[in-house]
């Protein structure tokens, strides 16, 4: 079924079409959200919000971009808005949000890569928003450069440059952790 036909069916309340769409995209949405938020509960809430929006705004999809691009765009925006909202209300929280993020291990890492993965995500969290988005879409979601450019609404050249800067900044940030790793265990 064509993307636009699927979305028309969902706009008309076809739950089977929506269920199929969820089966196809839920992991991509959740994986993107958890990479931004670095907390399972928050990623679940964002995924819920994204699919609720998809259902409610299905009639606004006009097929100008691929359906996957449209869904990724909603996911990136919802995740960024969630982070903004959370920062605004963080003074009310009695928990140490920063500490929680430091301990985050993405569930997709191989067991032997978990320590390195933890440090990588800690550094990723400190990157400027655009670099973080490019890195998540490019290296964690594994999307082609052109698709990242379409999602972010910028040129291919600008996207490639962002990815380079993201990697460069991650290298610099990771340098700090190298001596820590070399310390002998007591």
């Amino acid at each position, binding site marked *: 079924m064509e993307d636009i036909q699927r979305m028309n069916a969902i706009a008309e309340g076809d*739950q089977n079409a929506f*269920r199929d769409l*969820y089966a196809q995209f*839920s*992991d*991509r*949405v*959740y*994986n993107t959200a*958890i990479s931004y938020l670095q907390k*399972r*509960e928050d*990623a*679940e*809430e964002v*995924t*819920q919000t994204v*699919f*609720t929006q998809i*259902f*409610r705004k299905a009639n606004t999809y006009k097929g100008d971009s691929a359906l996957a691009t449209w869904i990724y765009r909603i996911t990136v925006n919802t995740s960024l808005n969630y982070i903004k909202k959370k920062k605004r209300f963080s003074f*009310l*929280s*009695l*928990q140490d949000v920063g500490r929680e993020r430091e301990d985050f291990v*993405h*569930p*997709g*890492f*191989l067991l032997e*890569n978990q320590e*390195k*993965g933890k*440090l*990588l995500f800690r550094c990723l969290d400190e990157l400027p928003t655009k670099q973080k988005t490019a890195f998540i879409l490019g*290296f*964690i*979601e594994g999307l082609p450069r052109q698709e990242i450019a379409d999602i972010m609404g910028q040129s291919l050249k600008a996207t490639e440059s962002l990815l380079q800067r993201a*990697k460069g900044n*991650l*290298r610099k940030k*990771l*340098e700090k952790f*190298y001596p820590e*790793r070399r310390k002998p265990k007591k």
Partner: protein
Amino acid sequence: MEDEREKWISETIDTTRDMSRAVAPIGLFDKIMVDIAGSRVMTIPKWQRNLGAAAAILLLVLNVGIGMKYASGDSKDVAQVENEGDAFLSDYELYDL
């Protein structure tokens, strides 16, 4: 040493190559359908529940305390009505009354 560090950094960044996607939790679709149907299922974080409970208890204690004080009738802190306009005119003697 330098090479070893660079190698370690590259390996750390390359860990994303072997990553698999995180899988959406089971049961999330049902929550979404409930949400769409109108009654959103939300998990309220523990700290928000605690904050809400603390605020409710504080309000209750203050209300009971003030109520008891008022009922005992020995309070000198009870608000009284005063014509503020009169006081102002008299204090500053702006007009002859």
